[in-house]
């Protein structure tokens, strides 16, 4: 079956612009996660959705970052007034449930470059 998909695969934007990154989880997966992976580092947690609600947004670095999942499926990560430090690969993952043993399936990521 189809895995997690993310669009676009690459995004180049100018400093100060607004960007949206999209994630399509595996069908039927209720949990959705966003992570950010900077060059040479491991992924860092940003936000977790259970259904439509953000159950944990403690990883969002500041109020320029926001994410939604209005119908409990597709999610959009939104970044306002982008800065060069936002350049990274943004990863999305989904899993069936909320249990700690729920395997997360990762998408290929969106590489964001802020010039």
């Amino acid at each position: 079956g189809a895995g997690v998909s993310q669009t676009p695969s690459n995004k180049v934007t100018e400093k100060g612009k607004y960007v949206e990154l999209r994630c399509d989880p595996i069908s039927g997966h209720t949990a959705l996660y966003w992570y950010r992976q900077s060059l040479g580092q491991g992924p860092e947690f940003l936000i977790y959705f259970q259904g439509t609600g953000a159950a944990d947004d403690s990883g969002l670095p500041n109020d320029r970052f926001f994410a939604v999942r209005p119908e409990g499926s597709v999610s959009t990560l939104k970044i306002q007034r982008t800065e060069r430090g936002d350049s990274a690969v943004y990863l999305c993952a989904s899993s069936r449930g909320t249990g700690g043993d729920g395997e997360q399936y990762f998408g290929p990521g969106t590489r964001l470059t802020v010039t």
Partner: protein
Amino acid sequence: AQSVTQPDIHITVSEGASLELRCNYSYGATPYLFWYVQSPGQGLQLLLKYFSGDTLVQGIKGFEAEFKRSQSSFNLRKPSVHWSDAAEYFCAVGSMIKAAGNKLTFGGGTRVLVKP
């Protein structure tokens, strides 16, 4: 707060030789532990996971890992490396608090190079 340390940034191994990647974690309770592999241009793929029970866990692609509570370690091993194992490997610890879902904290990764 939970944390994961992968002491080796790079490891070079000859094809056919054994491989061991180190992972140390810090967590207040019995952790959920994971190893992921990331190949160039690919997404993260789960190799194996530990939740409870037998401390030696078997995964895909011939990998195994051993949970040692006394050492707070979860090292990954493979007896004989193939050229296709060249990739970056990430150890992660998952939160066990249901309300927090399965938030993963990753180590910095170990890049494995395989010599012919």
